[in-house]
């Protein structure tokens, strides 16, 4: 299999992705799909564990639901910014909420992309790969 590398020279294959969703079935299905696409996954079910797990595991990317117990998705986005080690991790929001009312706020809160459930698998994987390839730089970082 072809090995893709991102800008830091880290391979995309086996990149660790953290899935944050309170629905255990959906978490599992998403993990299975990610694993089938050569990613490693860590799953958490609430906002509090998301931060704790991110500190412990340092995932390369986070897929985040918005409606979560113990700190909703927006709280997670805010908390991530407060830890220098976590602030640079790209976050893709995957939620059942209406994009009309939440997409803008999500992106302004620091997420790199917004998907409404159910999302198209290929499109989601495409954005995940793009994020990992660019070594996405978040707020405040200069492009050149």
């Amino acid at each position: 299999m072809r090995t893709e590398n991102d800008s830091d020279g880290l391979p995309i294959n086996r990149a660790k992705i953290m899935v944050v969703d309170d629905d255990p079935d959906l978490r599992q299905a998403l993990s299975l799909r990610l694993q089938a696409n050569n990613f490693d996954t860590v799953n958490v079910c609430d906002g509090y564990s998301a931060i704790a797990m991110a500190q412990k595991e340092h995932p390369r990317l986070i897929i985040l639901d918005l409606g979560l117990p113990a700190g909703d998705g927006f709280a997670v986005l805010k908390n991530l910014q407060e830890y220098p080690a976590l602030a640079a991790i790209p976050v893709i929001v995957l939620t059942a909420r209406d994009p009309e009312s939440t997409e803008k706020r999500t992106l302004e809160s620091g997420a790199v992309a917004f998907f409404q459930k159910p999302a198209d698998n290929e499109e989601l994987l495409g954005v995940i790969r793009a994020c990992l390839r660019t070594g996405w730089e978040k707020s405040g970082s200069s492009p050149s």
Partner: protein
Amino acid sequence: MMEHGPVMEHDAAKVLLIAEKPEAADLVRLRLVESDCRYEVNCVPRISDALACLEVETPLLVLLDLNPPHSHGAESYRRIMQKAPNVPVVILSGQDDEPMAIKAVRQGVQDYVIKSDITAKQLERSIRKAVERKEHLLAIEAARQRQLEFKDQFLSHVSHELRTPLTCIHQYVTLLLDGLAGPMAPNQTEHLKAVLKSVNQLHAMIRDLLEATRAENGKLRVEPRCVDIGELIRQAVAMLRATAAEKGVGLEVGVDQTIPLVYADADRTLEVLMNLIDNAIKFTACDGSVVVKAAMVETDPSSVYLSVSDSGRGIVQEALPRVFERLYQDPNAVDGNRTGLGLGLYIAKEIVTRHGGRMWVASEPGNGSTFSFTLPLYSLAKLLAPAITHQGRLREDIVLVRVELTPLSKALRGSWKEACQRALERLRQCVSVDKDLVLPPMESGGAVETFHVVASIGMDRVNILLDRIRDQVGALLKQKVNGTLRVTAEPIPGPPAADPRTVEQQVWGVADYVTEIIQRSGWSNTHFTEKENHENAH
């Protein structure tokens, strides 16, 4: 709800009396003084005075003498009710004007009294009843409003809750179909495909439910841009080609190549086209055909006419007026097609209406149906006129500002699109609303986004504007996206000293000039090289 208590309370109740003739005013005053309640009467002669009073104070009630000479019957109480919709109105009528007074009550006035036989008791009772009746009406209206809000919240909540299990089904079905849980037998794959099809239908219904609610509340968002309608039709047809082929239905396109740019929301228009084409395929039998056309019509040069015709079984005469209604479903859908919620055509028509267009249908049972709609053509002159003219003359200094946003090679598509949208909003805040115009952006296939502003400012001072744009839009880009910004300006030559043309013609001239420069530099922006972008990066 009214802030005042009932008429019987201790504070004097304020009554605004509109009576042109002093004798009418005096009569009413007298009767009010005689009554058991305390009234504070403010008497004005004209409707215009009354409107001014209502501006500063809300009375308990308005008493309107229906024959003030400076106003016209129905017009006068309509203006009062429009100005103060929460204040009850009682009409003072002459004996001969009673029919008009009755008509007024039907149109929302609370009550009327005949001036010639007016008594204190009668007037007092009329006032009390009018106030009570208005309170009830307002309470009903408030309850209706609460109910509507509840309905919105309910639908939004339901659609959110339905999406969660639907997502789960979608994920597991696609996992199985993609062979990620082991190999599948061919018939198992077929069964799962049927499940997936239903999941997608359910998904579409949930989406329609929310869209229809938005349409109903006038909250359907439409962001017009300059679009190539032929390209949109080709996109819609390409996406539905497989569906048509599967059913054995022919799909043809006839687009008049001379159609100018259309001023429409590309995503929304695509939604309308796909809805109509998908419907046409659905109601056409094997070996039939669907034709999508776009053309100009001589009698209406400011619109483009689009139509989707099918050779299906057609619609019966009685059903024609109802097909655009919410929840309308074809009662004769017998061929196993699920019709969905019956919201598609309703939403499509709303989208077209929001663009300022029209949608209609012509059909004959057995001879197929044709759904047609219009969209406005893009007219730069029409948009420019208010900005570049002042007191009936063309402004002296006009410049064209170009703002180019370039993503660094690997920016994410979705985020970039969103960032460009926000950059456009920010750009609109940078310019003066009455003197400058941010041109509607061209729908471009490439990643580079170009915005243009026609600004009424001299080249000597244009740097102030350019710097503001660089600051505001640049800050947004740096902060959120890996992209670069380039802002430039060039003057638009003014008309010659003795220009025989009318202002309208001059505006046309400017519009043509602007269109030419923009087109010359290529709206598609494909000629920009990576090097240029970086050199000009801020």
